[in-house]
């Protein structure tokens, strides 16, 4: 019983982080039709930013959450305006290569700037909570809570605000959105900034429960892609459900076998989905 609870919490924490990462990937794909391979580098950006705040400025890692969000959003705006806006409407493969190049560039910059060392810190929430024999760290709980709050806020923005209405319109019919008066260029920039900010905020959380390396975000986003495909490309709620499912499965698999299996399980799953989706990964499901 306590083991089951432990695995459940572990699964929810990694599923939550995956969910926030996947949310951004889905948002960018839905609105811009861009598969953003560089999404993981925004996570890494947030992780290093938080590590710097904690180790250099001796601030709480929780301060990193809003700081990383703003930093990620700002860098996102610049990347979107300077790089991506110039290639929208080009063939999918071209755009894919551009975001891949951005990712490689980001990886290189992080390795140059921070070296390959494992960065971590002990500040911030600590201690454990004993629930029915299961040991749950306050850190994990904080991370889980932050993930729920961020996903919830994003879903609210998309479902309930005017901005969200515009983004959904854009995702469903670009031309009609434009002729209804939605500034497509601005909306894409906002969507990208929002997704990048979320990724960097997720990176702050990643730095809290693990070690930060140049490819910490990259690894997380590989799983996020699986989740986004699992949930139906571009579907926000689908991505969140997929993230929780994959998080739980991986939590069980890494307990029963070991960590390296959990990645393989993700990609086995992906292969099965591809077989089951003859319309192709980029084909939009009917509903």
């Amino acid at each position: 019983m306590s083991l089951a609870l432990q695995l459940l919490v572990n699964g929810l924490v990694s599923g939550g982080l995956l969910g926030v990462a996947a949310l951004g990937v889905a948002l960018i794909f839905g609105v811009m039709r861009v598969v953003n391979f560089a999404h993981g580098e925004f996570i890494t950006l947030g992780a290093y930013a938080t590590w710097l705040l904690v180790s250099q400025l001796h601030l709480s890692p929780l301060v990193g959450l809003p700081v990383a969000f703003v930093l990620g959003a700002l860098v996102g705006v610049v990347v979107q305006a300077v790089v991506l806006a110039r290639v929208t409407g080009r063939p999918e493969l071209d755009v894919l290569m551009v975001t891949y190049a951005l990712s490689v560039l980001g990886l290189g910059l992080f390795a140059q700037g921070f070296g390959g060392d494992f960065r971590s810190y002990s500040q911030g929430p600590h201690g454990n909570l004993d629930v029915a024999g299961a040991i749950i760290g306050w850190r994990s709980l904080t991370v889980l809570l932050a993930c729920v709050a961020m996903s919830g806020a994003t879903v609210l923005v998309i479902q309930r605000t005017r901005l969200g209405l515009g983004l959904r319109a854009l995702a469903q019919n670009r031309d009609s959105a434009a002729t209804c008066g939605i500034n497509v260029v601005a909306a894409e920039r906002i969507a990208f900034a929002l997704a990048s900010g979320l990724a960097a905020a997720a990176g702050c959380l990643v730095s809290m429960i693990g070690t930060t390396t140049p490819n910490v975000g990259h690894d997380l986003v590989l799983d996020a892609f699986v989740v986004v495909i699992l949930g139906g490309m571009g579907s926000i709620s689908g991505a969140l459900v997929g993230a929780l499912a994959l998080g739980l499965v991986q939590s069980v698999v890494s307990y029963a076998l070991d960590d390296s299996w959990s990645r393989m399980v993700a990609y086995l799953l992906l292969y099965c989905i591809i077989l089951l989706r003859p319309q192709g990964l980029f084909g939009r499901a009917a509903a």
Partner: protein
Amino acid sequence: MLELQGVEVRYGQAIAVAGIGLHVSPGAWVALIGPNGAGKTSLLRAAVGLVHHRGQVRLDGEDLSSLPPWERQRRGIGYVPEGRQVFPQMTVEENLRVGAYTRRLAEVADALDMVFVLFPRLKERRTQAASTLSGGEQQMLALGRALMTRPRLLLVDEISWGLMPILVEQVFARLAELHRDGLAILQIEQNAREVLRHADHAYVMSAGELVLDGPARELAADPRVIESYMG
């Protein structure tokens, strides 16, 4: 009010619209007819800014040629595209709210009421996903959505396509009401007989060029038009 001058649209090497000039006076109802592939849709897409074009698109003297669609919308152009193009996963009401995207919140409720009075059917279905509407209802929704933008000029592309005769009549009756209230209309239509009955002026387009134009009443009696489009 709307003036097109030397508008040209190309897709790669293919010329779809070969330098067309056309005029819609304030409050006028202008028909644009022609065979399939003539370039009618391309011309309208150029007018709203959805395809790159050469030549000039002027609205009340202002050159809109370099403006994107959302800027043209803000200046008073409403667009009902060919093939409905509603937002499938949104409800009827959300679709209409997108139409009112650039309007002040206080005006949206009134605009919704106005559309629901014109199309009571949409009111009954306001919480239903647009993809579950019938073709005719989606056509009404596309028109309603365009009206939510409060256009001064409405560009309509084959709104009667696939509708039962009774619905065609209804749609034209609605357009006639709007026209009476001062809305200018430029309408592409396969149903030449019906549109020429309502329009003031008409243009006939073929293979990317204008081949005829004149008062709608005269074109409706022109043997070439009768033979080709009203058979």
